[in-house]
């Protein structure tokens, strides 16, 4: 039986498995983080998963984006990923959005999700996704990588977001250096956070930025605070009042 081993986990069991089956998760970005996130959410039996990415597979993706194979070069990432995920677990409904998120469509696409997982490669989309999630009151699992390092953190309307941390002022020079296994480790942590949030178990990483150092082999937690003048929190509040 597919889920036999996780049904044995007291915090999951039959009722948790049913909860996962009834859940919907949106994963933004099907790259180095998105590959492990999607693989483990699909393996775990999350019922509906929507994947959003407008990119096509290139050869330089293949050191870390393991849902895409050499034969997929040139194909849309969402289609390449959907094919592998359907083969892994046909019980999961995987839908695709082959578009770039923008301020006009982001809320439409993430609406109805129980959790959103941010696996994108640019600060602009990170901030946009965080703003939309907060406005719709959807928990967001945030993750990022650089070289041998990475972090994971959960974001919610009552907790600090990337804008609270000043991340919206970042001038990111691309491409960011990434070791495939680092993205794998952080993506696995994001999948773990997502499952915790869906099941309402454990201690989510709200206000706790968990940092990974692959060279020293350490995890370090940094407690972060919500900014009083955060524009995203203000926009989310204004959006709710406007409804």
């Amino acid at each position, binding site marked *: 039986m597919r889920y036999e081993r996780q049904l044995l986990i007291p915090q999951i069991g039959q009722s948790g498995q049913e909860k996962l089956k009834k859940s919907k998760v949106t994963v933004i970005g099907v790259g180095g983080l998105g590959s492990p996130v999607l693989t483990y959410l699909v393996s775990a039996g999350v019922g509906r998963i929507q994947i959003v990415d407008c990119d096509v597979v290139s050869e330089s993706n293949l050191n870390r984006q393991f849902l895409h194979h050499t034969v997929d070069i040139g194909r849309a990432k969402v289609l390449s990923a959907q094919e592998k995920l359907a083969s892994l677990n046909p019980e999961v409904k995987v839908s695709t959005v082959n578009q770039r998120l923008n301020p006009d469509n982001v809320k439409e696409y993430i609406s109805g999700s129980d959790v959103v997982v941010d696996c994108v490669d640019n600060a602009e989309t990170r901030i946009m996704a965080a703003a939309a999630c907060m406005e719709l009151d959807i928990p967001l699992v945030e993750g990022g990588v*650089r070289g041998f390092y*990475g972090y994971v953190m959960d974001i919610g309307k009552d907790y600090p977001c990337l804008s609270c941390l*000043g991340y919206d002022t970042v001038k990111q020079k691309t491409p960011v250096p990434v070791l495939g296994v680092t993205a794998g480790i952080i993506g696995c942590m994001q999948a773990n956070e997502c499952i915790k949030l869906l099941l309402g178990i454990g201690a989510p990483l709200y206000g706790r930025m968990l940092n990974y150092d692959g060279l020293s082999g350490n995890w370090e937690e940094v407690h972060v605070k919500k900014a009083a003048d955060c524009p995203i929190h203000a926009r989310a509040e204004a959006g709710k009042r406007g409804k």
Partner: protein
Amino acid sequence: MIEVRFFATFREGRDKVSLLEPKDFKTAGDILDHFRIHREEVAILLINGLYSPADTAVKDGDVIALFPPVGGG
């Protein structure tokens, strides 16, 4: 003392944590200059867990955390 915690690539070629004499630094920017870190290299600068611009004053007991930008893999 002021504690400076470096994260990700900022810790390469440095200790992970440095302790500084408060009398030698007025602002967080002075600390960045001390470590030869350009302002635009810093994605997140926290003082005691709170986002702070580089011109924020620093004092004894502060814990500063510095992060570079990240990608999505």
